[in-house]
């Protein structure tokens, strides 16, 4: 397996689609009239960036043994439905010990003016 700490993936643009936001809100039992649920960051931040990591042959993530162990979102502000944001994923850490690989994956989301919106920190554990 390759350690890919520090590797940054191309930025991804996503529109915060109002219909999908409402569907997401209903799925988690939030009030769709209260705007974009904070954890919709699972879509606009983590959701659009993590496929780059999973699809990266160099990172060689073994899905069969993949566990999403921890997740943190930190917001500078909450985006509004209809906005377009840009998210960039980066491997913050990649350490193997005792037969387990720990991959820290961070995603930074910015708005159309480049101002920060959200930071996502995911920890993946891959058992060998």
């Amino acid at each position, binding site marked *: 397996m390759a350690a890919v700490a520090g590797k940054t993936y191309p930025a991804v643009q996503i529109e915060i689609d109002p219909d999908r936001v409402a569907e997401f809100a209903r799925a988690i039992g939030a009030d769709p009239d209260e705007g974009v649920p904070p954890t919709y960051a699972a879509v606009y931040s983590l*959701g659009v960036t993590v496929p780059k990591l999973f699809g990266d042959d160099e990172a060689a993530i073994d899905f069969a043994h993949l566990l999403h162990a921890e997740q943190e979102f930190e917001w500078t502000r909450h985006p509004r439905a209809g906005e377009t944001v840009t998210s960039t994923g980066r491997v913050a850490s990649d350490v193997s010990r005792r037969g387990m690989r720990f991959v820290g994956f961070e995603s930074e989301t910015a708005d159309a003016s480049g101002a920060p919106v959200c930071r996502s920190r995911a920890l993946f554990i891959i058992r060998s």
Partner: protein
Amino acid sequence: MTERKVTFTREQIAAYAEAGGDHNPIHLDDDFARSVGLPGVIAHGLLQMGILGTVAAEAAGGPGHLKRLLVRFAGMVLPGDTVTFTATPDGEGRLELSAVNQKGEAVLTKASADYET
């Protein structure tokens, strides 16, 4: 303390898969889930986190007040499981969060949130 009790259903898990964009068959297809050693389909960790986020948002005075949310995914949630999600004030602008199933097992641990007061 703010609390919400949720009994998970296949329909809710499927709705989250659609809206959240995570179509991993371990959440949708019992046969597939069993083939990888699970008891059947399981809920998305991010669905559990999403529900916990609504409880944290309520305790914080509204979703716009949340500044940070952290969880560790500690246990599986199956359709039919009932999970109690709670948010307890833990100092200025800080919430201690928990998610415990009907057997008393924590399914999310190390969970906390910061909010704007």
